[in-house]
C-alpha cells in the first residue's frame, strides 16, 4: 500500500478492510495494537493522506469503513471522549501542521491514546472570541503563556490542548493572535472543574501560569492565529444528517410520553402548549431534513443557524412544559451535588435537569443572539453592527 496509488473507491476500501480484519482478529488483538495497525493501514480516516491514517480517498467513504469495523467488533478509538481531537484538532493539524507535527500528534490522537481539548473561550471573550487576553510572550525557543480559559470540555482527560493566545497586544485584535498546541501536563497548567447550574461540572476552567510552549508547537504563522482558529471552528459545526430524523426526537419525546402517560395532568391550556410544541418540533425536524437534503445535493443552505436557534428554544420550552406537567414532582431534583459526568445522556435525566441544562443551548456554540446577527447579515444582507474594535490596537479596547 503506497502513497502513489490512485485514490481507492468504495469497493477497494471494502476489500482492504476485509484483508485487514483477516490479518488482525478483533477478538484476539490488543485494542491499542489493533488501532495503531488500522492507522498504519490507512483505514483510520480514509480521506486523510497516506501515511497519516488515510489513503487519500474521497469524502463520504468513511461511513462504510467504520460500519464494517464496527460489525466485526473492532475496538473503538474513544470517539465521544476525544470529540474535540477528532473533530477539531485533527483537521487543523492536518491543514496547518508541518510534517513533523503531523507525525507527532495525529497517530496517538486517532487511536484515542491522547485526548485533546480546546483552549479558546475566556471569561472576557465569549461571543467576541478575538478579544481574548491570554498572552504568549516569546522567550528564546519557547513562548511563555499566561491567562485563563473556560468552557473547556475534556480538559481533565486531555494530554494536549489547542490554544489561541495573544502574541501582539499592539496589533488590532484579530491580527495579534497565534495558535499553539499545549501539553496539558506541562508545569503551570491547572485544570479545575467548572460547576454549572445543574450541579455538575461538565466543563473546566484552565489556568495557565508561565506555561512554556516550544515554538515547534505553534500551528501556522505568528499573528495568523485567528485564521487557524476560524478553520478549527468551521469544523465544529454540527453535521445535520442525511437520512430521516425520527419524529418526536429531541426534547419533545419525553414531553409527549409524559403527556400520554399522565392524563390526570392535562388541562386545556397545557394541551395547547403541548400541540404547539409538537407542531414546531415537527417543523424543525423537516427543516433539518431539508437542510440535509440541500447539503447532500451540493446546495449548502444557510439554514444551519436557524436550526440551532430553533432547537435551543424547543429544548427549553419542551423541558419547561414537561417540568410543569410533573406538578409537585417538578419541584424535586435528583441531585445537586458536584459530579463530573463523562458523557451526557439527556434522555435518561429528569425534566428538571433537562430544563436547567438546556438553558445553555442558546449560549454554547454561538449564542442565539449572535446567530440572529448571522442570519440578518449573511442571509438577509442587512448591515453589520457598528463596531469600533477592528482597527484599534487590542490593548486600547474597552474591556
Amino acid at each position, binding site marked *: 500500500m503506497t502513497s502513489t496509488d490512485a485514490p481507492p473507491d468504495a469497493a477497494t476500501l471494502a476489500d482492504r478492510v476485509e484483508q485487514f480484519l483477516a490479518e488482525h482478529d478483533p477478538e484476539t488483538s490488543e485494542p491499542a495494537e489493533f488501532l495503531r495497525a488500522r492507522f498504519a493501514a490507512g483505514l483510520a480516516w480514509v480521506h486523510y493522506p497516506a501515511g497519516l491514517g488515510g489513503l487519500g480517498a474521497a469524502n463520504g467513504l468513511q461511513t462504510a469503513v467504520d460500519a464494517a469495523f464496527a460489525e466485526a467488533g473492532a475496538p473503538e478509538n474513544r470517539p465521544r471522549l476525544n470529540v474535540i481531537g477528532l473533530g477539531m484538532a485533527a483537521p487543523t493539524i492536518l491543514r496547518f501542521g508541518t510534517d513533523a507535527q503531523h507525525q507527532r500528534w495525529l497517530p496517538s490522537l486517532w487511536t484515542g491514546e491522547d485526548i485533546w481539548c480546546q483552549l479558546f473561550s475566556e471569561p472576557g471573550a465569549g461571543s467576541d472570541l478575538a478579544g481574548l487576553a491570554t498572552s504568549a510572550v516569546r522567550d528564546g525557543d519557547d513562548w511563555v503563556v499566561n491567562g485563563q480559559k473556560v468552557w473547556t470540555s475534556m480538559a481533565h482527560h486531555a494530554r494536549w490542548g489547542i490554544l489561541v493566545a495573544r502574541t501582539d497586544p499592539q496589533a488590532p485584535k484579530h491580527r495579534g493572535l497565534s495558535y499553539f498546541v499545549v501539553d496539558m501536563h506541562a508545569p503551570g497548567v491547572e485544570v479545575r472543574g467548572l460547576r454549572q447550574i445543574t450541579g455538575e461540572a461538565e466543563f473546566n476552567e484552565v489556568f495557565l501560569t508561565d506555561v512554556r510552549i516550544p515554538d515547534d508547537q505553534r500551528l501556522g504563522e505568528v499573528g495568523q492565529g485567528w485564521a487557524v482558529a476560524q478553520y478549527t471552528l468551521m469544523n465544529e459545526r454540527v453535521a445535520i444528517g442525511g437520512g430521516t430524523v425520527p419524529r418526536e426526537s429531541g426534547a419533545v419525546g419525553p414531553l409527549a410520553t409524559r403527556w*400520554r402517560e399522565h392524563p390526570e395532568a392535562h388541562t386545556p391550556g397545557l394541551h395547547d402548549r403541548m*400541540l404547539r410544541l409538537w407542531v414546531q418540533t415537527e*417543523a424543525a425536524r423537516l427543516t433539518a431534513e431539508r437542510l440535509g437534503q440541500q447539503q447532500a445535493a451540493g446546495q449548502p443552505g444557510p439554514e444551519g443557524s436557524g436550526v440551532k*436557534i430553533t432547537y435551543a428554544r424547543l429544548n427549553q420550552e419542551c423541558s419547561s412544559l414537561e417540568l410543569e406537567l410533573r406538578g409537585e414532582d417538578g419541584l424535586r431534583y435528583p441531585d445537586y451535588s458536584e459530579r463530573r459526568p463523562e458523557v451526557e445522556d439527556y434522555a435518561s435525566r429528569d425534566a428538571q435537569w433537562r430544563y436547567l441544562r438546556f438553558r445553555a443551548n442558546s449560549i454554547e456554540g454561538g449564542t442565539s443572539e449572535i446567530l440572529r*446577527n448571522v442570519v440578518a447579515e449573511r442571509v*438577509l444582507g442587512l448591515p453589520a453592527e457598528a463596531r469600533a474594535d477592528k482597527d484599534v490596537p487590542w490593548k486600547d479596547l474597552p474591556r
Partner: protein
Amino acid sequence: MTVTTPETGDLLYSDVEEDLRASVRALVEKQAPWDAVLRRTDTDDSVDTELWARLTREIGVAGLAVPEERGGAGASWREAAVVAEELGRAVAPVPFLGTVVATAVLLGTGEDELLAAVAAGERTAVLAVGATRGAGRPLPVTVERQGAGDLLAGAVTAVVDAVTADVLLVPVEGGIAVVEADGDGVTRTTVESFDMTRRLTDIAFDGAPARVVTGGDTGKALRVGAAILASEQLGLAERCLADTVAYLRERHQFGRQLASYQALKHRLADLWVAITQARATARYAARCAADDTADLPVAAAVAAAHGADVALLAAEEALQLHGGIGFTWEHPAHLFLKRARADALLLGSADHHRSVLADLVDLPA
C-alpha cells in the same frame, strides 16, 4: 402508542418545478402587478379572468395533478404547490385554490369530461362548502331529491372561488351533486370580503337541477387543499419578508438605514427562520399529497397550522415595519395582511388543525 416516522421524501425543488415557478412568476408579474390587483379590489370584476385564462391555457396550472390520460399534465400536487407559492406571493385574484380542491374531488369520480375541461381551463369548478370548513369536519348537507331528476335546495355560505365558477360540486348525502352555476334555481351573491383579492360567494339553491355522482372524497380533497394553501402562505410570507427587507434597506431615519437597527434585524431573522420551517412543512405536505401517503393528514395539519401562523406573522411584521406608509390603501402591505388573516381561517384555523393533530398523533386533550 409508538410514533412512527414516515419516509420524508424529497423536500427540494426540482428543475422542472423551478422552471414552472419562473413561468408563473413572469406571467403574474406582467399581468397582475400589485397595483393592478389593488385597483381590481375596488371593482365588481374581482377575478382576473384573463390571467386565469393564460395561467391555465399557456402554463396548464389547473391540470398539473391530473393524469395525462385524463386530460391533464401528468405532474402532481408538488408542482401545483409551486404554483400556489407564486400566486400567494402575488395575492393573484384567480380561482386556483378552488380549482385544486374541485380537481381533487373530481379525480375520485368518473366525471372525466368535466375533469378534462377543468384541467384545460375551459371550465372552472368549485366545491361548494363554506370557506372555513377544515378537513375532517362534517360537511353541510344542502340537497333535496325529487322524482327522476335531483333538485337541490338549501344554501351554502362563504364559498371560495365561486364568483366565476361554471360548475358547483355540492356535497350531498350519497355523493357529490354536480350543478351548473348559472343554471336555474341557483343564486350566487358575491360577498364583501375581508380579503378582496379572493371574494367569497353565498349560494342559494331553490330547485336547481343536479346530477349526483359518487367516488369523490371531499375530506381528502380538503386536506389536499390545506396542503396547497400552506404553499400559498409560504409564498406570501416570503414576499412580505423580501418587501420589508428592501424597504428597511432603503429607508433612513436618524441618519441610518432602518435595516441597521439590531432590534429590527433580529425580528427579521426570526421571521426568516420561521419561513424556512414553513417551506419544509409545505414541501412535505405537498409531497404527501402528491404520493398520496398515509401521513397526508398529519403533514397537511402541520403545514396548515404552521403556515397560517407564519404567514400572519410575516404580514403583520411587514405592516408594522413599513410604518405609516404600510397603513395606507395605496401600499400593498394590506393586501398581504388581509390575505394572510383570511388564509388563517380558510379550510380551518391553525387552532383547528392542531386539534386534528391531537387525534392523529395521540396527544389527547
